[in-house]
């Protein structure tokens, strides 16, 4: 790695510290400012003042917010994100068991969205204003506007309930045994050479991943098309064509590489929206990931779980976007870091 590159990387990593501090602070303050007292939500209709006071005391909610924040920060630095108010589970354990499920789903969706999206975008750009262009861009717009909730149910009805090609919900059949090593079922199945479980887990992944991929797929397809169209009008593309290069090579080797930067940026930014889209998808498909964890936690005002989950999502988001920035140099030799 050249020296400027490693310096750049170091700077970016250092810059993350205030970002994470900011994330913790903002989430901490917002969750405390949100109306609704966790003790009251736990006790529900039957809260008495005595029970409330006692429970708030047990939960450490009677202390001043700055004290609570300082204590949280000190513990977080040691890797202790506290325990869930609802279940008493350590938040770090909650996240370690759920995050692999969400990442598996998100990566599956991203894979579908980027391959299908880029492919559709390229074809649409090459055949700009053809019937294929019109139809695919209309479908992309449709996919972008379709509520995930409705789409998920429709896919289940058609492909799982009616045709029986895929299971309706869950991550693995109850009858399938799988040793849980990493929590990524596909990976676990590969590691333990459990082919039955691999197939079963894959079949469970298809419908939720397709559901989750629709919005980013539409964005990526449209972005690829417009970015590529712009590049195809550039002089160097005309030069390449004039040299007599075959059109396939002109598009794939010369144009697409230059059109890729905005597309990769969009892909990176979409990881964030995928993680939030996963909340709905996980609910529909009973997928045991962080999306459902955080929704339940928000409703219960389970502060430690909300804080821990947002923090981890922030880490993933920042890391992915760092990778995106680094990939620019690989794609475009004119870009240098320093």
């Amino acid at each position, binding site marked *: 790695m050249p020296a400027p590159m490693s310096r750049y990387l170091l700077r970016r990593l250092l810059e993350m510290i205030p970002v994470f501090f900011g994330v913790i602070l903002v989430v901490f303050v917002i969750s405390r400012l949100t109306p609704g007292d966790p003790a009251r939500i736990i006790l529900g*209709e039957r809260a008495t003042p*005595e029970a409330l006071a006692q429970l708030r005391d047990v939960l450490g909610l009677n202390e001043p917010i700055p004290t609570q924040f300082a204590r949280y920060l000190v513990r977080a630095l040691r890797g202790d994100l506290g325990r869930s108010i609802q279940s*008493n589970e350590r938040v770090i354990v909650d996240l370690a068991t759920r995050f692999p499920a969400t990442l598996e789903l998100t990566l599956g969706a991203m894979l579908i969205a980027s391959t299908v999206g880029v492919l559709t975008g390229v074809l649409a750009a090459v055949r700009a204003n053809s019937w294929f262009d019109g139809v695919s861009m209309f479908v992309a717009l449709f996919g972008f506007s379709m509520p995930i909730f409705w789409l998920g*149910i429709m896919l289940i009805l058609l492909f*799982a309930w009616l045709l029986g090609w895929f299971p309706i919900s*869950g991550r693995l059949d109850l009858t399938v045994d799988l040793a849980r090593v990493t929590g990524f079922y596909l990976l676990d199945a590969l590691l333990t050479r459990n082919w039955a479980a691999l197939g079963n887990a894959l079949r469970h992944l298809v419908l939720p991943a397709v559901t989750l991929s629709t919005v980013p797929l539409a964005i990526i397809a449209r972005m690829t098309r417009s970015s590529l169209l712009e590049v195809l009008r550039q002089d160097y593309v005309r030069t390449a064509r004039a040299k007599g290069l075959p059109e396939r090579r002109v598009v794939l080797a010369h144009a697409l590489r230059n059109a890729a930067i905005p597309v990769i940026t969009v892909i990176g930014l979409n990881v964030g929206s995928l993680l939030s889209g996963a909340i709905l998808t996980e609910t529909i498909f009973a997928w045991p990931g962080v999306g459902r964890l955080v929704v339940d936690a928000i409703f219960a005002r389970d502060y430690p779980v909300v804080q821990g989950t947002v923090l981890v999502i922030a880490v993933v988001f920042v890391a992915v976007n760092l990778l995106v920035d680094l990939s620019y140099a690989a794609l475009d030799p004119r870009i240098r870091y320093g």
Partner: protein
Amino acid sequence: MPAVLVIASLLVAPALSTAAPRTSWDATACGRVGGTLVFGQAQDTVSLDPNDVDDGFSVNNTSNMFDTLVRFRAETTQVEPSLAESWTVSPDGKTWTFRLRRGVKFHDGTPFNAEAVKFTFERTTDKKHPYYPGSAPYGGFTYQNVTKVDAADDSTVRFTLSAPFSPLLTNLAMFSAAVVSPTAVKKWGKDFFKHPVGTGAFRFVEWVQKDHITMEANKDYWAGRPCVDRLIIRGIPDNTVRLLEMEKGGIHMMDQVNPPDYDRIKKNKGLVLFTGAGLNTGYVALNTTKEPFNDVRVRRAVNMAVNKPALIKAFYEGVGQPAKNPIPPTIWSYNDAVKPYDYDPEGAKKLLAEAGYPNGITTELWWPNRARPYLTQPQKIAEAIQAQLAKGGIRAKLVTFEWGTYLQKISNGEHPMAIVGWIGDNGDPDNFLYVLLSKNEAKKGGNNYSFYANTQVNDLLLKAQQIGDQATRSRHYQQAQEIIARDAPWVPLVHAARVGAYRMEVQNFTLHPLQIWWLHRVWISK
């Protein structure tokens, strides 16, 4: 049925039927032993520590793994012996002595005894206890008035009370009073919630969080082993998806059916829809400390302006019951002689004029922004009530807050009219009437959201807490219901039904009035 299973069931069924049933649950022998039963419920399990849970979804798990000293009978909220075989109450009502069943063991082999009962009580009520389970939200409620629990000998346990309190017996049947293995609690400490050990019909095997919990039959269960070998409880949050899973056979049974799906289930020959009276009341609390609702005529007018059958038809698919009393008819002492306020918008207008409001009144109707069993579609129901009230001369603006804030505000008495409700914890009338309508609860932070303070009613409710005899208690509660109906601090709206659905092959299932899914006597016919 495979031959092996036929032989197995021939061998087992007579063996079970010759023994006298230990509880009301065991009246019917298992028609078939074995197999895996899968129950899909609407939310995920939060915790498996019965002394710490407060949500019905977790309780459905713990109730199949743990026992209590006394238990609810199979079809009612009356109680019968369970881990305690018998009990006596001292004449002053302050000492309760329970004789425990001998020879019962926890799933980890620890013997069940008086020390375990004492340990459970102490860890649930003393927040300084080394094994206090986090928050024990039901602890104070369950052991109200109990000051200490002693082990008189290995199989005799004594509860000492600060004042007589008859509802204690029903409280001891609640999930929160489930007896836990002291050995396991000490072994797992704060992680006991995911390593539960009880004496119940099923023993814990595995919990894949936010996915499913697996239990296996406790073959040594003191009341006879459960019919199925394995019980799996899955969380599938979407009501439609859960139904599709059941139709395809992925799960055998489900809770919380969308009302519009009732017909779909009834038409499917492979499925059964279970409906029964619920143990809940949805109502409008009229703030009796605020004008104009401090005038009983105005409160009666509001009662006359609400058309309950129309609400039930529109929002409960016809399976709820219109309410006229604070307690549902599933609870003993329900006073059926109370005359309901009939729907009469013109009469309401007249009554308002009499009270000095010839042009009607302008006010607010508060509604909670969260679906509850007694309030299936909060916003739509609130809008419907608003429209009905308008015809009776009551112009109400709709106001809502997020659930936690809502409860806080109505508990402070900030509302003129508020839609709210109550789900019975234990089937004792005290659990509705005292908690919701006694003078003691008519304070900021209390549960008496109408701030109704009638001395006569309060006396009746207090006395009923201290009398041991159920018939006398019942008379007190019936009288209280009459006075409450006359004073009209509420508009009682509805008792929503308890609903569940299951596949045809599921046998011997009834959904208990408490809506806890006890599944140890259920078998699968193929």
